Structures are given as C-alpha cells and as structure tokens.
C-alpha cells in the first residue's frame, strides 16, 4: 500500500524546481494516542482536571507515559468502564455523574474539568458532549465542564492537545468592543518560554499578548475578528480552524524552533503590528546574537550527521528544518504522522531536496529503511529506542521534545544539545 503523492503546496508551490514527493505507507503505526497530551496539559493548566472515560488500557497508557514519577497528586484520572457500563448507556451516564461527584468532592480546587473520550467511549458512542453539558448545569458556575476526544482511533499523540485546545475555543470570551488588535499565542509552552516571548513582544510593542492555554482556566483570553494568532506548535490544525471560525486571523510563519524559526515567527507578529525592521532588530537583536553564539559550539558535534525521524509529534519537519539549516545536519527521512501542508507551507521549502518525507507509517518497513540507511542518530518513540540502540544506532526519544522547553532564542542551544547528548554519550562510553 504505497503511494507517492506530489506535494501540491510546499516546495513545489514555492517555485522549487524539483517536485518533492511524500511516501505514504499503511501498516502498523507505532505512536501514542491523543490521551498522552494530558501528561503535559495537566501541568500547564493549573486548575484543570482531565478525566478520561475509557478502559484500563487508557489508564495504563497515561500512567506509563507519565512514568508514575509524579509526587504531587496528578490532576488526571480515568473512569474505567466495565461490563455494566457497556450493557446500558443510561447506567454509564449515571456512573459518570457519580464519578464526577466523587472527584469534585475530592478536588474542590478544580475549576475546569475535561471529560476526555477514548476509543472505547467512541465506539460505544457514549456522548461526552451531552454529558459535559448536563454536568455543567449541575456544577456551574464553580466548575466548567468540557469534553474532547483523545482516542487512538482519531488522534495521534500531540493531536490530543489540539483537540483539547479546540474545545476551549468556543469558551473564549468575545473581544471587548473598544479593543484594538491583540495577539494570541496558541499551543502549550513551558512557562519560562512564555515569559521570554512575553518580554520580546513587549519590547516589540506587540500586544496585548495572550496565551492559549492559559495557566489558569479562569484567565481565558478573548477571541474575535481583531485577534491575530501565532501557532507555537505545528499540530494545532483544529484549534486554528476553530479560531478562524471566531474571526481570528492566523499569522503564518515558521515555527519558533531555532534562531531562524524564532526570528521568522516573531517577525510575523511584528509585521502585523507594523514594527519597522530597525525596531525589530533593536528589540530582538541581543537575544538573537546570543543564541547564534550559543548554537555555535554544537556545529562541530552535529554538522554533517545524518538524522532519521520516525513519525511521532508532528514536530519532525520544523525540527529537521532547524537541524539542517542551522547545524548542517542531513535529514535522511523525516516521518510525520500527518503532513499539514498549509501550516507547514513555510517549513517545507526549507528542507533539503535529498530528504525523504513520509506521512503515516508501516513501522516494520520503516525500520528496514532505517537500518539500511544507518543514520548517525534516530529520533523515535520510547518503544523503539532501546531496540535500535541495541543494534548499534544512536537514538533520541521524541517525547522529551514535548517535555522540555525548546522554543525561542534562549532554548535554541538546549534543543541542539538534546541531539548532541546521545552522540557525545555514545562516543564517551567505552563499554
């Protein structure tokens, strides 16, 4: 089941001479489902709780992905369905009400509850939107209840965050009639990165700036026709569409990975605010210069190294662009679970022509290709890393790219370091 489809947008549309193709294979996909996003989202939105309505498998997935290393009580849980819930949906709804009541009693501090759908809840057609509406009536106004699906039959890994944020969009208040244009940064970022961006936007005179998701659910930013938004993450397809439906305008740009990406991303906002080039350089110059210098020391370690990406987070293409253009790495294959041409329109033309793009996965055949290519470093999920290491390949687990601050100028070198460390380590070990 191969298909080589020409890339309509992207490089061809940008006037590139070669017609790039995308390898699409159908087989086993070795990726997490969208529930995984809960692991970082529950830390980002500090007064939100995520209740997965699913099976023991779903509970086991989240706890395995989270590593059960969290000391504080997690703000997520699973309502595990059993046979009785499958037998009658009416009872399932009663059971859900009972569980939510127990949860609310235990965590009265929670202001926002997400009912998160899973494969089993989707397949039995348990209507969580209705349940959320019903429960909202009971607990409003102290507790807001929303729903989204993180099921593996519909979402891959980071798409869970997309679904979560998209469910927040209808909740965003309308713009104040008198307000001018505002900037919304969309996608969960580490708090430290958020603060850096806030300072840069301030220096640029771009504002007011808001972030989605907010750290507290009670601080939901407004959205409307005067909202300009930047995507901080490449996987926010549905959220972007929902914001556009509210009248907001996307500022298309590279993603803020590496110096080039960060500059282009900030520039997109600066342009929308009519900031002059001189003022832009004055505002970001120091941070940009500092990060270029910090990246420098990784050029020797990473330059010329061949890198292979298994599909995982949808961050693969912007990462490959950064590593190729700023550190002279050679992306051999860049796999992505979904290739969202429109949001990647700026990214795709910047990838080297020699890079094979693949969308979707047949993990067995992709492993064959990976072994045949013997890249210097492989970016892959946790299930594949040790088996690949055991065959002599060096790996970087991709989930770390979601748990580590990597966006923006100050993190560009940290991002390079994430790829350099496995190589340094392999070189250092004599056993």
């Amino acid at each position: 089941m191969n298909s080589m489809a020409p890339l309509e947008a992207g490089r061809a549309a940008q006037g590139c001479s070669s017609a790039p193709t995308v390898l699409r294979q159908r087989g086993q996909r070795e990726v997490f489902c969208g529930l995984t996003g809960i692991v970082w989202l529950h830390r980002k939105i500090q007064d939100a709780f995520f209740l997965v309505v699913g099976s023991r498998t779903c509970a086991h997935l989240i706890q395995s992905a989270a590593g059960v290393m969290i000391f504080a009580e997690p703000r997520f849980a699973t309502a595990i369905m059993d046979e009785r819930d499958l037998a009658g949906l009416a009872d399932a709804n009663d059971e859900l009400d009972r569980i939510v009541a127990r949860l609310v009693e235990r965590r009265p501090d929670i202001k926002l509850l997400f009912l998160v759908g899973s494969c089993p809840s989707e397949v039995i057609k348990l209507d969580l939107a209705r349940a959320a509406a019903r429960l909202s009536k009971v607990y409003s106004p102290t507790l807001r209840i929303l729903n989204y699906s993180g099921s593996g039959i519909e979402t891959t890994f980071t798409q869970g965050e997309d679904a979560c944020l998209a469910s927040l969009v209808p909740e965003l208040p309308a713009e104040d009639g008198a307000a001018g244009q505002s900037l919304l940064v969309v996608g969960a970022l580490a708090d430290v990165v958020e603060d850096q961006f806030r300072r840069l936007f301030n220096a640029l005179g771009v504002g007011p700036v808001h972030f989605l998701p907010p750290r507290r659910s009670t601080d939901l930013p407004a959205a409307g026709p005067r909202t300009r938004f930047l995507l901080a993450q490449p996987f926010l397809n549905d959220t972007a569409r929902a914001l556009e439906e509210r009248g907001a305008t996307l500022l298309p740009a590279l993603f803020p990975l590496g110096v080039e990406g960060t500059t282009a991303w900030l520039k997109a906002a600066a342009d929308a605010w009519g900031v002059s080039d001189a003022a832009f350089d004055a505002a970001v110059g120091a941070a940009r210069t500092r990060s270029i210098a910090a990246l420098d020391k990784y050029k020797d370690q990473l330059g010329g190294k061949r890198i292979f990406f298994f599909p995982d987070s949808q961050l693969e293409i912007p990462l490959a662009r950064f590593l190729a253009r700023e550190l002279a790495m050679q992306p051999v294959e860049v796999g992505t679970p979904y290739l969202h041409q429109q949001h990647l329109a700026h990214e795709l033309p910047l990838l080297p022509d020699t890079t094979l793009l693949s969308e979707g996965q047949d993990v067995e055949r992709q492993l064959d290709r990976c072994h045949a290519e013997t890249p210097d470093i492989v970016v892959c999920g946790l299930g594949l890393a040790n088996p690949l290491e055991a065959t002599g390949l060096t790996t970087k687990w991709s989930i770390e790219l979601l748990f580590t601050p990597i966006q923006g100028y100050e993190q560009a070198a940290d991002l390079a370091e994430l790829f350099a460390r496995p190589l340094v380590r392999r070189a250092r070990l004599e056993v």
Partner: protein
Amino acid sequence: MQLTLWTYEGPPHIGAMRIATAMKGVHYVLHAPQGDTYADLLFTMIERRDRRPPVTYTTFQARDLGGDTAELFKSAAREAYDRFQPDALLVGASCTAELIQDDPGGLAKALGLPVPVVPLELPAYQKKENWGAAETFYQLVRTCAAPSVPAPGWQRPPRGDARPRCNILGPTALGFRHRDDLVEVRTLLDELGIDVVVAAPLEATVQDLMRIGDADFNVVMYPELAGQAAQWLERTFRQPRTKTVPIGAAATQDFIREVATLAGVDAEPLLNARKSRLPWYSRSVDSTYLTGKRVFIFGDATHAIAAARIAQTELGFKVVGLGSYSREFARDVREAAKLYDVEALITDDYLEVEAKVQELQPELVLGTQMERHIAKRLGVPSAVISAPMHVQDFPARYSPQMGFEGANVIFDSWVHPLMMGLEEHLLAMFRDDFEFHDDAAPSHLGHGTAQRVEAEPSAPVASAPAPQMPVSSIIWAAEAEKELSKIPFFVRGKARRNTERYASERGVATVTIETLYDAKAHYSR
C-alpha cells in the same frame, strides 16, 4: 465505572504480551488501535529489553471502522507471520477491538498458517493483567502439549531409578525479579538432584512446551501466573504441583521439603546446610531495634503473603496491615491476614490503599511502586516487594527474592531504609539538636532526601465510642504541643490520636503535659 488514578495491573492483553515476550518463537497479533502500542515501552524502557516485544498491532483507525477491520486483521496477521516466521501465533483483541467483535481467532484460523494459532479470549472489561498472563500461558501450554495428552484414566508410571524431573512454571517478562528467582529455583532443584525438563515461559520455546508432559511434577513459582496451567497439567498428565512459594528463609526450607517429597529425594543435607544469612543477621543483637516495627504490606497475593510471614516471623516486625490487588487470590490473603490479627485489604483502588496507610501510620511500607509513592509522601521508609514496579526495580545486580540468596536480598533491602537502632534512640533523646529535625533522613542514606509530610489521618478518628467530649474540640496547651513535638515523627501522629482519644473519653478539654503522659501510660503495653 471505577475512578482510577493509578492502576496496579494493566489490561489482560498486557499479560498476554508478558508471556509472548518471555518466550522464544512466539508472536502475538493484537487487534488494537495505535495508542495501544505504548505497551512496547513497558518492556523496552522499564525492563530495558533490547528487542521489541514480538507483537504486531493492527492499529485500526476510525475511518476503518465503517470498512473492513477484519480484512486489516487478516493482512496484519499474514504479514506478521511472513516477516517473523514464529513457531506459534497468539491472536486476540484489546479493549477497543473487543467491542467491534471481529473474531481474531476465526480470522487467523482461516489463514491456514502452518503453525499452531492460539486464539485468546481476554475480556478486557472484566479481567486484568495477571489473569491475562495466566490464561495465555494456559492456552499456549494446552495447544503445544495437545499431541502428547494421554488417554483419560492414564496413570503416571513409577519412575524407577531415573533421576526425578520437574518443570518450573511461572517466570515471565516484566515480572518482579523473575529472571533471578528462576536462577535460585534452578539452583535449589539442582542441589536436590532434580532435573528440569522445561522452565517456562521465560526463555522457553514452543518445542519445550511440547515436552512439558515428560516431567514428574511441576514447581509453581507464581500461582497468579502459572496456577491455571499447573492445574491443567495435574489433571491431564498427573503431575502434582508445589504449593509453597520459596520467598523467605522459612518458606525456602518448606519448599525444599515439599519438593523433596514430590521427587522422593532426601531433603536433609540441603536443609541442614542452612545457607541463608537472614536468620543469623536477624538474631544478631544489632537487629534488636527491628522488634515490633509496624509494617504495612501490599502487593500481588504471592509476594504480599510471603512478605507478611517474613516480616513477622523472620525479622520480628509487627504486621499492622496486609492487602493485595489480586482479587482472584483474596481468600488466600484473608487467611494469611488472620495469622496477624489484621483485616485483609482487598482492593485495586489506589486511593483506598493510600487512606489505609495514612490511617495505620506504619513505620515501614512494603508494597509496589504505588506504595513507595505513598510512603515517600508521608515520609515513611519503604521497599518494593511486588509488581508493578519502575525501572529502578530492575537492578543490574543479581537480586532474587526466592531461595537462600533471596532471603539475604530481602533482609538488606527492607532493613536498609530504616533508621539504625542507636541512631533512632539518639534522635528521640536529643530532639532539640538542630541537626535532628524532622526532615533528618537515616544518616546512611545521605542528607536532605526525605520530604516529610506529617502522617495525619485525613478523616477524623472514628474509633472513640460515645465520646463525652468531641475529639475535634480538644485543645492542646502550648507546653503539651511542644512536648509532643519532641516525640519522633513516626509515632507522633499516633501519640496525638491516642492522647486525644484518652482526653475525650475522660471529658478533658485541654491536653496538658500531664494528660499526654497519662495517655502514654494508659496505652503502653
């Protein structure tokens, strides 16, 4: 529906994966959505395996549901067979596929593969990981041994002069110390002059399982995992099975006796060799301080029951709580709990276990990685005795739980987290020494590691019958409060509770230093 923060066991297909991964030449085709592939990381990251588990997931998506997910299963199974060329194929469904009812067993049979195909029916909404492992192992043994099953009524002929032979059943992938336990059990059997026909499932092949009927009896290491297969083998091949699990010095001696009886060999030489250091270490006077330490135990049934016996009779602790998430073995755990005068806690609800630990305020917690978390939060020492466990519970060094060496390992790993005897006294005597604050960790564990949260029960004490003074209204005089703070943290909560109960029963509104010591005298035994 059950509200679950952490689960002790995965779904039953994880149990099937533990069998498939343990064996050689077995492949498992699992009808499941993509997210279920997370299970690979349990084996590659937590157990640090250098190979992917031998599992093919069909990873159907929503758009396949309207179409032909059955066809997807068939092509996945065929391709998996072609690529991996297994000697036997397990096929089954995960929770989601169970709902779409594609019948993986029937579909795989229809492919006409030239190897045994074992269809697994693992009800994901009723059963859990250990059950799934036991069922899978049983089905696999049955299928592989089928050609050699004797006629009904057949009796095992006397062995004559041949050396006794047994199978070892139970060790799996992702098991708590299974790899090392297997080595220990093999050593014991070897010293008794007993040959091993098959050890399974760990490292066993399909060909091995075909010979499983050749043995005279079966050693069952983990009843949760191998009990079902062993019962079938007993009925079918007249192979008696062991009931003793050799965890602990005394249980190891019992096990040697039991095995020797089944094999018809002399146990005395090995029994008299007294190879474990645990008994002497425990008698050594430096261990006096272990006496009566209050210990809470939770785990799978096998490990929890064994731990309770060791704690009480081999280390001189006091078992104040015993429980298990193995509902299938609830009866055994309840029986064991009676020996220690405690009520068994049978639950898979982490919140219930947490509440119990808070209520009992033990001085040592023996449990799974979940109880380690609870203990850490409460500032109570702990050791892991059972699955589920984390990467750190797969140590590089040899560290079995079973046999003589297992008893040594247990002594070290349970005693190590505790405060040493004299240290504990000094701490109690000189509480005002600025370095002896409540956060002081045992000195041999380094400084500043413990994050101590006082172990106050979250619910009000309900045990005081008809109090003349509600406990909640009791006031502590400042000096009494100060005196209380001089009592070591690990008994302070209990002292506070007892004092308040004493006061309330006597209608004392304000606790003074006098009340505190009156209560101490009253409750001391």
